[in-house]
């Protein structure tokens, strides 16, 4: 087989296949990748060129290319506005809160599932905890609204049955972040645990056996074997998460916004939507969005580089 390979492609071993020949051999690939590449260029890369309107004063009749350049005017306007700080802080507050709240629980769930020896119970738990992933954001938010409804909601019915006072979770500004974060945790924990469970299943069983012989109990095994073994996974996910620390997804928070909670619920994504599409301030909105994307990318690269230095784990 080895001989065959050598005679079939003698150049490969020496690495001297001329570019023209390689190009010619790749023609079928170029044909196959044409459609995906066109879609990628048109719908992902062309809009990046369109983002130049962040540096222009976009006029509908002039279009993207002919509108006049204004430099960093829109960025300056944003940073000088009184709203900028509030919005950036709101975004940071919610995403850091979410990161802290949502990060440890999937690990705990995965460790418990991994140690569970009663396989039917384990399967049932997995099946149930993954389920919320399939619920759409609209349905999730409407469940929140129904459950916390001041008169008909199950939450207040429960509190009243226990002799406690009703709370209006969606009607008071102070609860907003917690409701947003913990319902997110409810939805994502099961799903997020899968990846840790996958990492745990590849821990060699000899390690456990050796530890047992050495007298380590299960708590000890979790901390000395399980967690170190899945540390690369944990770090990788952490890097990916920090890349989005300055972004709170639009879909859920926009649905949860009401006139009472906007002082804390207005985040960059909802602001970009409102000034952009509702007030038709295209250039300004693009500038804010672009700034957000650039900061996210920078953060991701920084954390990635630090992690690469410390632990040799890089995502990109």
């Amino acid at each position, binding site marked *: 087989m080895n001989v065959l390979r050598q005679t079939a492609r003698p150049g490969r071993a020496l690495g001297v296949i001329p570019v023209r020949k390689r190009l010619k051999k790749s023609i079928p690939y170029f044909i196959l990748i044409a459609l995906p590449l066109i*879609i990628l260029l048109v719908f992902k890369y062309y809009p990046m060129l369109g983002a130049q309107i962040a540096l222009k004063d976009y006029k509908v009749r002039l279009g993207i290319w002919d509108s006049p350049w204004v430099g960093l005017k829109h960025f300056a306007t944003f940073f000088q506005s009184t709203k900028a700080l509030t919005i950036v802080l709101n975004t940071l507050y919610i995403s850091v809160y979410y990161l802290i709240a949502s990060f440890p629980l999937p690990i705990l769930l995965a460790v418990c599932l991994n140690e569970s020896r009663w396989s039917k119970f384990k399967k049932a738990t997995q099946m149930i905890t993954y*389920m919320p992933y399939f619920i759409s954001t609209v349905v999730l938010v409407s469940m929140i609204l129904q459950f916390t409804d001041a008169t*008909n909601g*199950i939450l207040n019915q429960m509190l009243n049955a226990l002799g406690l006072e009703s709370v209006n979770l969606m009607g008071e500004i102070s609860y907003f972040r917690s409701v947003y974060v913990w319902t997110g945790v409810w939805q994502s924990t099961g799903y997020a645990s899968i990846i840790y469970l996958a990492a745990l299943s590849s821990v060699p069983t000899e390690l456990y056996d050796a530890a047992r012989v050495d007298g380590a109990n299960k708590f000890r095994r979790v901390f000395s074997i399980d967690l170190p073994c899945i540390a690369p996974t944990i770090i990788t996910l952490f890097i990916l998460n920090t890349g989005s620390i300055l972004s709170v997804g639009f879909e859920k928070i926009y649905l949860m916004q009401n006139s009472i909670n906007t002082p804390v619920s207005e985040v960059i994504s909802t602001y970009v939507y409102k000034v952009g599409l509702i007030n038709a301030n295209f250039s300004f909105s693009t500038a804010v969005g672009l700034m957000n*994307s650039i900061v996210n990318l920078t953060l991701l690269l920084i954390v990635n580089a630090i992690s690469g230095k410390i632990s040799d784990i890089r995502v990109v």
Partner: protein
Amino acid sequence: MMIKSEKNRIRQQWDDSLFDVFSTVVLIIAILLVAYPLIYVVSASFSSRYAVTSGSVWLFPVEPSLEAYQAVFAYDCIMIGYRNSAIYTILGTLFSLTLTVLCAFCLSRKDFFGRRVVSFMVLFTMLFNAGLIPNYLLIKNLGWLNTIWSLIIPNGMNAWFVILMRSYFQTAISEELFEASSLDGCSVYRQLYSIVLPLSSPIIAVVSLYSAVGIWNSYFDAFLYISNQALFPLQVVLRNILILNQLDISQTADLRDLASRQGMSTLIKYAIIVVSSAPLLIMYPFVQKYFVKGIMVGSIKG
């Protein structure tokens, strides 16, 4: 010495059982927290409107009735949304799957000249995007506002799917198959069609599943691009009814007093939640295997 190690062993066993109790308790709490809200929604939707508003539903349906479901199925908007979402989901998934297979196949082949450049281009879309307005202007300038294309074509290329599928091709299909077939004079197209596709049903299932769930559950694109009610996908209809409270229950007759109307509207909302989530939840037990597998494959390459 003997006695001491025996003592340690007993101690270890005791600690182990303590851990088992702890982990079982954690899992039971997790089950209860996740399952209860879901069970409550289903039970409430099958109860009578008085039972729901008076707070007598706790776990099982009280005064079982189907009145909410009758109202939901008589509600045109929801049925239209259902149909639209089904169309968008099927077409969108097929389109995305085609692109993903083509792209992932090329990127998985070492003799593809330009592999690195294209890989980077795909990966980069995960890290950076142009933002809301440039995307909106593109769709608008293409004249795709209020068309089905705006929901299907732009999201066809998903970097995550490509990476997932590429790493499957690289790990699950042996290189020898390609070498043997190319010695036999098999073309690249034939390799894709006769080697890769027949061996890829698990990953095709995974990507279809993720894509279908994503399209069925998303409302953002339609919210931006679609204003024609006849084209609304289910999630946009749901948003109008469930979040913005645009529920017109005058269609559903005999609602005399305010309390009864309010109860009915609450009840209908629960039923709508069940009806709209049902397709995915019914499908879920059958596809759970693939759902987990997808993440496993993805985690190999990180």
